[in-house]
């Protein structure tokens, strides 16, 4: 693989940049693999990358129904954070933060990681108390957290509504200064390029039609481009998890829902951190192109439509305008939707299943993008070693049966709880 560097950039300038290697090849499926990863999104690509890099398993295929990074990897709002209270979430996410910090160097691909900080706004004394508690929990787990008062928040985001007579006055906020954003497509492309260079086959336009299971063991997978013999399969299909679970005769604690996001027209730099509204569900950041990137609640009913419905968008943007009134002057550039794998306690699942050789990675709800490296790393460990890593112990499938729910916010599919 050609290294991306200033020297290669200059060298290739002489040939008019016509002779760069392809970033990854368009593979056709072989008859047999050691591991098949279903889903060519961020988590699937990262899993294949860490399987090759950390566990020396390179005879891997990634099977993708559509195109690489074309699902939620290309539809998210690119927020990266680890501001969790519960240990299982905090340690997992902070492990991921460390992978984010060195990702561009690690992948030799500029993922434009921008640790610009995230602020969760508080709108009451009670909310300040609960943020102080979460901030303390974060610090005990080695995560940076700063509790800001009203004046300190005003210094960072003066464009927010600090007037006296508002329905949800800003009391302060909890900030994680090391949180931020990254270029989502670059993350997919970076992982794909490195995985491909280590021998992973990335097979696009290849739909899984069924599984070959006998005596409780995985023997293969049937696809639209032929049958593949394999002993280990990793499912990383986010919003399509329920569809594949049905083919495996499994019912899982996950529902498929629609989440929308939108961007305004590009404007000059105004917001240099990620901000979330504390009296509802709304988050905003400004992209490098200047667009205000926004998102909020689920549409609220089971959906596979990768497009949204206006009542929810109106509801979300009403919150946005309550928080930052200047948004009402901007024109909407684009809105879109992605289908989320909403778990019942709002936390993900990375685990083995009752079928030998079948591994499950799903339930990412609103937070799949930021988990990409940690999810790939722990899922690769789970597949390669056939046992979960300490970091994803809490993300077990059996927790719904044993009662060890990881109810960080306790939201899951039930948006009305918030």
């Amino acid at each position, binding site marked *: 693989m050609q290294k991306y560097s200033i020297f290669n950039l200059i060298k290739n300038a002489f040939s008019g940049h016509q002779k760069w290697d392809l970033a990854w090849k368009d593979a056709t499926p072989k008859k047999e693999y050691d591991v098949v990863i279903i889903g060519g999104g961020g988590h699937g690509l990262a899993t294949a990358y860490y399987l090759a890099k950390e566990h020396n398993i390179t005879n891997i295929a990634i099977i993708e129904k559509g195109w690489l990074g074309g699902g939620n990897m290309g539809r998210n709002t690119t927020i990266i954070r680890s501001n969790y209270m519960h240990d299982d979430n905090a340690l997992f996410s902070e492990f991921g933060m460390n992978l984010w910090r060195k990702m561009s160097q690690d992948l030799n691909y500029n993922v434009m990681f921008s640790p610009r900080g995230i602020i969760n706004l508080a709108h009451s004394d009670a909310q300040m108390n609960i943020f102080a508690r979460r901030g303390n929990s974060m610090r005990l787990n080695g995560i940076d957290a700063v509790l800001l008062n009203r004046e300190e928040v005003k210094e960072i985001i003066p464009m927010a509504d600090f007037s006296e007579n508002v329905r949800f006055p800003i009391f302060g906020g909890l900030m994680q200064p090391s949180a931020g954003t990254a270029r989502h497509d670059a993350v997919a492309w970076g992982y794909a390029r490195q995985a491909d260079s280590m021998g992973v086959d990335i097979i696009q336009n290849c739909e899984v039609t069924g599984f070959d299971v006998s005596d409780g063991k995985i023997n293969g997978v049937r696809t639209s481009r032929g049958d593949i013999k394999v002993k280990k399969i990793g499912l990383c299909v986010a919003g399509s998890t*329920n*569809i594949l679970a*049905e083919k495996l005769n499994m*019912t*899982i*604690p*996950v*529902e*498929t829902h629609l989440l929308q996001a939108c961007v305004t027209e590009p404007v000059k730099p105004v917001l240099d951190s990620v901000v979330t509204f504390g009296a509802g569900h709304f988050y905003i950041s400004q992209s490098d192109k200047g667009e205000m990137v926004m998102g909020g609640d689920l549409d*609220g*009913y*089971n*959906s*596979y*439509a990768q497009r949204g*419905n*206006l*009542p929810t968008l109106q509801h979300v943007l009403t919150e946005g305008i309550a928080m930052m009134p200047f948004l009402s002057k901007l024109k909407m550039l684009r809105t879109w939707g992605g289908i989320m794998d909403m778990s*019942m306690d709002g936390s993900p699942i990375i685990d083995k299943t009752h079928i030998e050789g079948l591994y499950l990675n799903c339930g990412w709800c609103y937070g799949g993008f930021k988990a990409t490296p940690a999810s790939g790393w722990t899922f690769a460990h789970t597949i390669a070693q056939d046992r979960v890593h300490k970091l994803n112990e809490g993300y077990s499938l059996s927790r*719904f*049966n044993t009662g060890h729910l990881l109810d960080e916010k306790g939201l899951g*599919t039930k948006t*009305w709880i918030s």
Partner: protein
Amino acid sequence: MLHIKCPHCGMRSQNEFSYGGDASVKRPELNKEISDQDWDNFVYNRKSLRGKHLELWQHLSGCRQWIKVERDTATHEIFKTLKANEDI
């Protein structure tokens, strides 16, 4: 915007309704010994497939009755609406 035909009030906008999830899920019988698995299936496990989906909605800003709606989860086409005690 979905338009849902409430069996009690007629065609109304989605804004008047709130969603109640999969209507095919049955609560295990009271006073009967049930396994943990049955309880899990009732509380947590869902099929949530692409295509026809029978679900509960409540006409919250209308007659406040719970109703059943058969809807396509990919196209959002609504095939049929029923009173809560009716079966498809």
